[in-house]
């Protein structure tokens, strides 16, 4: 298929094949080898570029979604006159140089959004980019110096690319591709295709797609790209409910004031789900549909009493979260349906929420323990406590024993200890049992203790 895109502000028409990634487009078709492949599954950041104003890992972006996109790579920076690149060279931030282009792009993207980051914010902004040479100190210094020199203003020009512009014409597909590749721009079109071809594989954030292929999954025959469906990208407040489109990225959930206001636990889960380049691509719908036991959204959504809306050409179907998962990587979706949105009831006034996640390191890590908790204090006693733990089993574990234990009781030290035991016994991890049980118990106990301190 033939797509049209902008690379470093120049327009190109490129013939791609469906399995190509943005990384292949840059390196193979355009000879832009500054963008490196270090792992091919979003774990190292060496291939990071700015796509439509946001940092992404180009190894996990399907080329077929790029029609009309704008890409900035390291070759698009000013080079010798670029203050950020100069700071990297002069501050000793470059050693072997393999991570450097991706690191520079991550730094640029950070400064575009936050022209004066603190040391901690710089660390967070670069957490998805591995460097094995420097120990990061010189990189942090270089970014800090570029910020002081006002690089944020230069970088902010990338943000103009965020406006999604529909290209002048559709991408050009061969006759054969027309039966296999679907690039809908509205929901009806998407549902129609699904009705005709129930075996379509849907692509959203694709942060699991290429890793799965690398691990041996078969490349799907028929693909549908959902990234151009504007209807799936809305966050709307309705009567007592917030509706989040399935195509909303985890980064947007982490930033959105409505979400942050009503659902701090969801904001936290989104924020902690991955490093920035992943969060800019990964969607809430994808996080649910992948149905991975380690996913961060499902426990929170279960805790919040959310439901999902499936959409097909015959209409909508609402399924409560409790009935959504049907097994390992299996969901309640029916052929011909796509996941349209998630509906989350706005919790009662005074409800406290928390989401805790523990991986093996601070960032960009798969959860080994994650727990979502909520409860409220009513006249000094606990009401409506909910606890959901992810990662322990194929499906998220609702720990009802804790809810029953605390209902109507005031927070006391002995209750906290009882909660610790109940939560500990409420999960059944298959590996590292002692450790993960202990941590679950401790975190739920922490929640109850902090609930008491809110008094």
């Amino acid at each position, binding site marked *: 298929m033939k797509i049209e895109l902008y690379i470093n502000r120049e327009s190109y028409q490129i013939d791609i094949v469906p399995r190509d990634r943005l990384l292949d487009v840059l390196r193979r078709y355009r*000879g832009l*080898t500054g*963008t490196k*492949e*270090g*792992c*091919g*599954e979003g*774990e*190292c950041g*060496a291939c990071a570029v700015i796509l439509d104003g946001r940092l992404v890992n180009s190894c996990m972006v399907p080329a077929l979604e790029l029609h009309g996109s704008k890409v900035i*790579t*390291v070759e698009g920076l000013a*080079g*010798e006159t670029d203050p950020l*690149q100069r700071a*990297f*060279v*002069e501050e*000793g931030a470059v*050693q*072997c*140089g*393999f*991570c*450097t*282009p991706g690191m*520079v792009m991550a730094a640029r993207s950070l400064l575009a959004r936050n022209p004066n980051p603190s040391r901690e914010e*710089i*660390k*967070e902004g*670069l957490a*998805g*980019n*591995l*460097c*094995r*040479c*420097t*120990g*990061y*100190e010189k*990189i942090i210094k270089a970014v800090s110096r570029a910020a002081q020199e006002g690089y944020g203003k230069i970088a902010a020009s990338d943000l103009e690319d965020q406006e999604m512009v529909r290209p002048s014409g559709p991408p050009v597909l061969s006759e054969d591709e027309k039966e296999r590749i679907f690039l809908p721009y509205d929901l009806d079109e998407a549902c129609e295709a699904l009705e005709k071809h129930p075996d379509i594989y849907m692509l959203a954030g694709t942060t699991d797609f290429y890793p799965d292929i*690398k691990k041996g999954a078969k490349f799907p025959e028929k693909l549908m790209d959902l990234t151009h469906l504007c209807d799936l990208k809305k966050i709307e407040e309705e009567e007592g409910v917030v509706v989040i489109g399935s195509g909303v990225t985890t980064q947007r959930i982490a930033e959105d004031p409505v979400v942050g206001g009503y659902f701090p636990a969801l904001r936290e889960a989104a924020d902690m789900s991955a490093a920035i380049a992943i969060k800019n691509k990964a969607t809430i719908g994808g996080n649910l549909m992948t149905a991975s036991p380690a996913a961060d959204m499902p426990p929170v959504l279960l805790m919040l009493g959310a439901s999902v809306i499936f959409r097909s050409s015959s209409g909508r179907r609402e399924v409560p979260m409790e009935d959504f998962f049907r097994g390992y990587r299996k969901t309640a979706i029916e052929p011909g349906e796509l996941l349209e949105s998630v509906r989350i009831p706005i919790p009662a006034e005074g409800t406290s929420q928390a989401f*805790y996640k*523990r991986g*093996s*390191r*601070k*960032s960009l*890590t798969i959860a*080994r*323990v994650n727990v979502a908790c909520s409860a409220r204090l009513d006249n000094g006693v606990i009401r409506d406590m909910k606890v959901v733990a992810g990662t322990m089993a194929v499906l998220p574990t609702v720990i009802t024993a804790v809810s029953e234990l605390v209902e109507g009781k005031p927070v006391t030290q002995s209750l906290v200890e009882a909660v610790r035991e109940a939560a500990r016994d409420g999960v059944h991890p298959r590996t590292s049992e*002692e*450790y993960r049980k*202990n*941590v679950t118990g*401790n*975190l739920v106990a*922490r929640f109850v203790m902090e609930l008491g301190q809110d008094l």
Partner: protein
Amino acid sequence: MGNRLKIVGKSEPRKDGWEKVTGRALFIDDIPLDGCWYGGVLRSDVARGRLVSIEKDPSFDWSRVTVVTSSDLPGANMVASVRDDCPILAEDKVCYVTEPIALVAAPDQDTLKEAMACLRPVIEPDGEPVIDVQDAIKADRLVWGEDNIIKSFDIRMGDLDRGFEEADLILEESYTTQHQEQVYLEPQGTFAVPGQDRRSVDITISCQCPFYVHNSVVKGLGFDPDKVVIKQSITGGAFGGKEFYPSLVALHVAVLALASGKTVKMIFDRHEDLAATSKRHPSVTCIRSGHKKDGTITAMDVDFILNGGATTTLSVVVLQRGVLHATGCYKVPNARVLGRAVATNLPPSGAYRGFGVPQSMFALERHMDLAAERLGLDPVSIREVNLLDVGDLLPCGQAMTQVAAREVMERALEISDYRKKVEDFKAHNQEQPKTLKGIGLSLFLHGGAFTGSGEDYINGVTKVVFVPGDTAEQGRVEIRISSTEMGQGAATVLPQIVAEGLGLSLAKVDFMTPDTSKISNSGPTVASRTTVVVGAILTRSVGDMIEKLVDFLTSTLGVTVTFDGKAFCGGSHCMSFLEAAHRYSQEVGELIGWGKYRSTGSHWDDDTNTGDAYPSYSWACDVVEVEVDRDTLEVVPKKLHSVVEIGTVINPILAEGQYEGGSLQALGYGWLEDMAVKGDRIDAGSLSKYLIPTTMDTPDYNLEFIEVPYQHGPYGAKGLGELPHDGGAPALAQAIGHALGVFPTEIPVTPERITAMLASKGESK
């Protein structure tokens, strides 16, 4: 030499910085190749078995690809290295999971994948694989030789029995370390171009040691040395991981290129790289020590065992270095160090920054902490009473001529405020806060250069060439040696040494990316030897150039000419190096400065393993502060204070970068990096399973250098590369112990291990 240096000692920006930061630098996979084929390796999925046959699916059209098995190899089936026991391809037996069995080259990646899927090795399992070193030592199932012992060293000094008799306390403990993966960000990669007659080959490769690769390819193919050319490509990190392994990869592409007549390229996928390439040796070290009440060591008996995997690779020398550092910075009057590298059915272990020392130093430094605890002393005083002094002997008999252990430790205690924080953190932790705090220290040394007589064998030579331009000012100087830039800064630091000597600006001295047909053999880029050893040889290249110019000018000008560091002057004449060299190249010819290795006068006996183990040692003390979440056991290193003595610092900013980067690898080794072995294979097949530190796991660094110029180093410099990897893990383990009241003897200190330690002391939460 000395006080008015212009370039040495300055934080010059690295010379390869701009090409890397702009993405212009071409790494191996970035080099455009027309019509190249792609190579792949079919690997064993069985750890121990007999290779019966390799079946080819008849439905595949095999004329589309080239397949090579052991019977198709043109020469001896071996990768020449320390020993020649690693086959290029398995013949009748397989000894580890991922062992190469067959090679395929195809015109494109899809065909390659398809062909590989149509090859099926038939392997009959041959009993339980041997994984554990204690099992291997029993030698009831053989992996290697007659007893599974790849190499052993047994070093003794004094009278061990008497030493233990003199002790007030005798203490015995075992310490365990696991695999560690280098995780150079650029995976292994290479391509080979066959000569037209297929009797020569030209290989470009991401590597540390072009002549190692050259030697292996020459011997493996049975070619004349001049028929094999090895060119290093810009190398995206190595850390020891591209010392031995590229020889195997180069042979694979060379064989495929010669068999197919095509240029063949092979770039490892990260999964393959993690699963198959050589990593740091796992170790088990048992230390038995005797102490006086004040902590003084009376005797130490060290049993140091490395898991070598199935073939030798570099185990002999990794073991030797680990053994020779086993008593660290301490005076041990009666000592025995027994070191054994043991063969198992795991992928061959190999070189990784520190080269055996991070393992033996972890055990030793933890053992010192344990002795302190048992004697009611603190970690500082037990070290103080045992510090080496000038004139003291190491177990191998080396008399120390320079020791900076006391200086680095005292200064590190000062800048970290260690003593006060030990008390403050203890008080803080007694309040039962959410976040516990801990602090720990380690003291360590690292020998620069090859062990023992290694440098005499290598006998490095440096070649520095004047490249004339149209005018004198357009001339420049090029260093053409086999030392490589792989991120550590050789391409900047070595030119600084040459520019300083010739009175040139740094811009006028270039470092050529090695091509074995054009360079002198200055030795491999390993063992923290490049600055201290090769840098010193380069000063002789500089001297040779100057001498040639002085002689030339003296005879042509008819006056006695001398060089004052800036210009050649005699009578009324005065000219810069560039003017003199320009004139020389017009009138005489090519100006080459040759530098030859000169022994520092140290002595080593290879038979008894006694003498001067290393010509110089670098010293450091690390103090690590950590925070541990009491509920989740999440460990975060918050601060690292280090004081480092490496002689003269040639380039401070690059030296800091080396120390900081090496330290973070060492900390990662201590608590995070978990290359778990599951059954007979390495479990961590992706970077989501094998985690290395990110920015978020990085401490704030507080780093200071103490400079004690070393007489045999260039401008007084010593080695640096490996030193920072030796101390992070034991310091971190001490800090975690301090925070939680446990005593880690095994790394990485994962939350699971902490849980187990807490449970065994009766605090299960």
